[in-house]
């Protein structure tokens, strides 16, 4: 048998050939691509990030390529998270500038040099707009009025005093601590019963888990005055859960008033728009305290008003009494006699009609000090000189 041995070459020779070909075609060039990322492995301490770029046809991955961020472009990941308020994780679609690299041992990958945030932000805004439109279109009770979302939740009147509080938050979070501290150490000495309903508030399952806690609050035997949803930690950037359609809908239709403290000053989630937004956990606590303080102030105002009214009523009664006393005094015969008038008696009766008195009748005139007894010698008509 004469076997013809195939002509071989060393692996390194072939790979070098590939390397040269790739360098000739892609060397020194960069390319903008738009692709979904997956298998994201961040190493913040080293400031590296490994990931895969993929393209799908339905659910089937049709194209896949390794990607990497080195320290010189790692800051783009941080900026991306900051700008878009979402974590740089698998499932995102990003637009980025890449360089094609080939290594004789590690193979081919795309080194990311830059991310285009505008694309990511634009996509987020479109999604947010779609969710809001869907909330209004599919739920007649959720209305958009002058740029403000009116929902059964934020339309419902707040109780005069908040005392029984259901707190939905992540266990041992800064949010839970901040809120509870301000509430419990309030300077007014107001009493509160805070019942925690703990759940994860970030990640893919978070919307479902928060919804479950909200259902528990509503089913609870305790008649909570208010539901507080807080999320703590200034560095938290994953806002996605709070833009979820189902969660936002449940919040909007919840009958218990909901106060949110889940964001920072510059972002408002869809959940915030459906409830009453107060930014931070501390601000929610302060709002609750202010509300109760306002109530107590009203009480004190009413108290003062009632005291004043009672005093006024008594003073008025006193004045009136004084007035009547004066009138009675004025009508008293003694008062009249003091003024020089006299009371005329005939036959021990006060003379009102002088017709019965004739010349010769004996009359008694009662003056203040003395009684004068006299006999009538003459009668004449009174010409009303003293018509008082």
């Amino acid at each position, binding site marked *: 048998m004469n076997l013809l041995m195939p002509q071989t070459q060393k692996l390194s020779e072939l790979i070098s050939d590939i390397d040269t070909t790739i360098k000739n075609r892609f060397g020194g060039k960069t390319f903008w691509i738009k692709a979904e990322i997956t298998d994201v492995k961040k190493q913040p301490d080293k400031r590296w990030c490994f990931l895969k770029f993929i393209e799908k046809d339905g659910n089937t991955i049709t194209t896949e390529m390794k990607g990497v961020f080195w320290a010189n472009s790692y800051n783009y990941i941080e900026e991306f998270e900051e700008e878009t308020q979402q974590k740089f994780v698998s499932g995102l679609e990003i637009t980025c500038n890449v360089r094609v690299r080939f290594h004789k041992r590690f193979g081919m990958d795309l080194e990311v040099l830059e991310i285009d945030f505008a694309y990511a932000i634009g996509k987020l805004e479109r999604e947010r707009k779609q969710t809001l439109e869907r909330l209004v279109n599919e739920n007649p009770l959720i209305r958009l009025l002058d740029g403000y979302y009116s929902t059964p939740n934020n339309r419902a009147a707040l109780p005069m005093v908040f*005392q029984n509080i259901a707190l939905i938050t992540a266990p041992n979070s800064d949010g839970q601590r901040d809120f509870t501290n301000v509430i419990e150490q309030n300077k007014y000495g107001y009493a509160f019963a805070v*019942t*925690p*309903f703990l759940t994860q508030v970030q990640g893919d399952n978070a919307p479902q888990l928060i919804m479950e806690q909200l259902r528990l609050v509503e089913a609870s035997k305790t008649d909570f005055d208010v539901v507080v949803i807080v999320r703590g930690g200034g560095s938290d950037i994953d806002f996605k859960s709070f833009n979820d359609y189902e969660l936002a809908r449940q919040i909007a239709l919840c009958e218990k008033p909901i106060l949110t403290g889940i964001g920072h000053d510059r972002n408002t989630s869809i959940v915030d728009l459906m409830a009453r937004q107060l930014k931070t956990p501390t601000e929610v606590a302060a709002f609750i305290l202010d509300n109760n303080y306002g109530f*107590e102030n009203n009480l004190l105002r009413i108290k003062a008003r009632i005291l004043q*009214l009672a005093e006024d009523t008594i003073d008025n009664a006193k004045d009136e009494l004084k007035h009547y006393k004066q009138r009675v005094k004025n009508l008293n015969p003694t008062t009249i006699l003091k003024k020089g008038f006299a009371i005329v008696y005939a036959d021990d009766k006060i003379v009102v009609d002088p017709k019965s008195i004739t010349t010769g009748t004996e009359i008694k005139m009662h003056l203040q000090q003395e009684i004068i007894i006299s006999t009538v010698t003459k009668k004449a008509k009174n010409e009303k000189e003293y018509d008082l």
Partner: protein
Amino acid sequence: MKKNMTYNEAFNALEILVEEIETDEIQLDTLAEKVKQANELIKFCETKLRKIDGDIKKVTEGNK
């Protein structure tokens, strides 16, 4: 006065009392009674603000 009155009920009752005291027809002999009622309502609210009803346990760690 009801024992487990809500703040809203207490406050509404207070407002009615104030209105009654404000009107001129108020009888002097009912004034004392009205003021007493108002003071009781105010005291009730003030106490309730600083004391949680006995049946509500204060929970600080995980409930459900």
